[in-house]
């Protein structure tokens, strides 16, 4: 598969890893946050951490739109779906995200809610056209990548006069989240989390370009390398970050030049701007309220805005107090630190959203990381003995 296989060459990765070892300064440590779940997934899936020297460590960031959705938004979506007139369309990823009290959309569907899994906003539109008696709501989630398809669906619904289509908008914004992390007390003042640089999102950046990262690089003096999601992309990006740190640079570099430009996809940006506007504040699970961290429909499209159309209320979040997702999303803790990990919380019985999405740090650690953790512990045991 062109543009896939050639970026999955394990031998080349080994070679680059050797270069990282050679380049990294032995007397200092490097902590890089990969913002995106896609990078987390690649790191876990391909065992990239095993290739890195001990002084180069990756911190898994909050870049999974499923993981950052607050529990109250899931509860609100379930309440909406239970309305007899409503058909809720959603991406499959959301079906098992836990709401309050063990609820989720899969169980709501079993309890009678009309919930349809779709592959694309185009499918949701088709359903609204085919079933004019149903109130079809698209449960929209995602970062800047997934927002333009929602905008186009809304545009098409308006053009077709589909009065029975609306959107429950949960689109969130990457730069706001990164800024929030960098401004958090953990990172800024307490110093409990050391971040020496960021791997920037791959597909988000195809839309927004590299330009929006310039602000942090400058303001917080942190290097950013936008990278693709294939393992060679990631490991190359890590080498680029090590070099920037060594050089004392804090630039925005673009590893993913085959698909990302400085200004991104301006056509997509324009479509989004036509229909959406910033929310003053939006709760991200783990990060709390993020100023200007999300989008909502512009007021002129209120009839297409499910929150207004159905007077939706977002109940206060009631996260499981033992779940460490929040700290994990901010990079303050690791999945293995959570008391629930692997005991009560597994991919079959997720307690937190980090375990639901296969992009989530806990799920990635469950599927790919337990092994390495064991090996590491065994090594440590041997070292002690």
């Amino acid at each position, binding site marked *: 598969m062109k543009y*896939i296989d050639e970026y999955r060459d394990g031998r080349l990765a080994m070679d680059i890893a050797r270069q990282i070892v050679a380049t990294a300064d032995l007397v200092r440590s490097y902590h890089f946050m990969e913002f995106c779940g896609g990078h987390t997934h690649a790191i876990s899936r391909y065992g990239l951490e095993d290739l890195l020297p001990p002084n180069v460590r990756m911190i898994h960031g909050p*870049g999974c739109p499923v993981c950052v959705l607050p529990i109250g938004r899931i509860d609100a979506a379930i309440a909406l779906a239970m309305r007899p007139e409503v058909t809720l369309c959603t991406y499959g990823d959301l079906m098992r995200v836990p709401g309050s009290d063990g609820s989720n959309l899969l169980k709501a569907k079993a309890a009678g809610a009309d919930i349809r899994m779709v*592959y694309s906003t185009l499918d949701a539109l088709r359903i609204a056209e085919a079933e004019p008696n149903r109130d079809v709501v698209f449960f929209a989630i995602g970062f800047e990548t997934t927002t333009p398809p929602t905008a186009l669906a809304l545009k098409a619904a308006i053009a077709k006069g589909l009065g029975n289509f609306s959107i429950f908008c949960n689109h969130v914004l990457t730069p706001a989240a990164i800024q929030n992390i960098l401004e958090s007390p953990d990172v800024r003042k307490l110093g409990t989390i050391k971040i020496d640089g960021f791997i920037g*999102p791959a597909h988000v950046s195809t839309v927004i370009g590299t330009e929006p990262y310039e602000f942090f690089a400058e303001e917080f003096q942190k290097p950013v390398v936008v990278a693709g999601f294939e393992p060679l992309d990631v490991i*190359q990006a890590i*080498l680029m970050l090590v070099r920037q740190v060594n050089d004392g640079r804090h630039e925005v570099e673009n*590893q993913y030049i085959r698909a990302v430009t400085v200004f991104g996809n301006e056509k997509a940006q324009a479509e989004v701007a036509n229909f959406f506007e910033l929310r003053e504040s939006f709760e991200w699970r783990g990060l709390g309220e993020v100023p200007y961290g999300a989008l909502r429909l512009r007021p002129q499209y209120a009839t297409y805005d499910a929150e207004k159309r159905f007077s939706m209320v977002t109940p206060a979040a009631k996260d499981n107090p033992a779940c460490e997702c929040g700290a994990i999303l901010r990079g303050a803790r690791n999945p293995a630190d959570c008391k629930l990990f692997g005991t009560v919380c597994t991919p079959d019985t997720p307690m937190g959203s980090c375990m639901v999405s296969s992009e989530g740090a806990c799920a990635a650690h469950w599927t790919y990381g337990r092994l390495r953790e064991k090996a590491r512990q065994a090594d440590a045991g041997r070292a002690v003995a």
Partner: protein
Amino acid sequence: MCLAIPVQVKEVLPDDMAKVTLGGVSKIISTALVDDVKVGGYVVLHVGYALAKIDPEEAERTLALIREAAIGDAA
């Protein structure tokens, strides 16, 4: 996040649609978000929409950089 794959455009269809292919599998997608989609070119596909075009020269350059990095810092 944001599962997306590089696919090749096989056919440009009316209404901003296109037939794309990957490894012998083809599918109809929307190209409404990108301009100047050409048969033979590659786009990044996400939830049924082409999000960006892939620049074959830049892809080649990336691979060259990776190979170069693997060999060691010539610089």
